[in-house]
């Protein structure tokens, strides 16, 4: 029992560190692509670490099985949602005022 709690504590510390880094990046970065990078990457890692910590602490077999299904589905759905948001930023052209190389007409990239 104590090994599960130690592993849960390690996952909790890692998730909190990644979450704080993502929240700082959400405010420090200037254009929507960088904010999407910070938010989706660190947010996904923080939530995934928290789910691993909760997997260690789950009280019964029923909740453990549901938690495994939730982790698999979260790893599928979170990057897909970020991809939808990134395509929306590209098509709306909100980032063009920050850097000229992000404009859709610029073919240099």
């Amino acid at each position, binding site marked *: 029992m104590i090994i599960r709690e130690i592993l849960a*504590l390690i996952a909790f510390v890692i998730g909190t560190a990644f979450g704080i880094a993502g929240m700082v990046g959400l405010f420090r970065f200037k254009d929507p692509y960088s904010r999407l990078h910070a938010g989706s990457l660190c947010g996904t890692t923080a939530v995934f670490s928290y789910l691993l910590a909760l997997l260690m602490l789950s009280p019964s077999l029923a909740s453990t099985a549901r938690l495994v299904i939730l982790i698999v589905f*979260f790893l599928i*759905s979170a990057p897909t949602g970020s991809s939808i948001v990134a395509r929306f930023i590209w098509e*709306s052209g909100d980032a063009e005022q920050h850097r000229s190389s992000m404009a859709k007409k610029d073919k240099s990239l």
Partner: protein
Amino acid sequence: MSAFILKGMQTALVIFVCITLIRLMLGPTSSDRLVALNVLSAVSLAFLILWGIQTGRTLYLDVALVYDIFGFLGFLAITRFLKNREEGR
């Protein structure tokens, strides 16, 4: 020890939700708001699962799975709506 970890996780998630809500409110463009909403849906999913583990009821985990699926579909609907509005202007 276990109660301490659950309590700390709850506090950290509430702080993350507050910071993300600030970004959601003062984001200058709709893209920034959508990025904040993407993070907010993941954090609220984690909070729902945390509550299910903390109270020991598996009902909340089923609700979390359905919330994840419909939040995903909601993103498609929101982006389609915003894109149509910008094209119609």
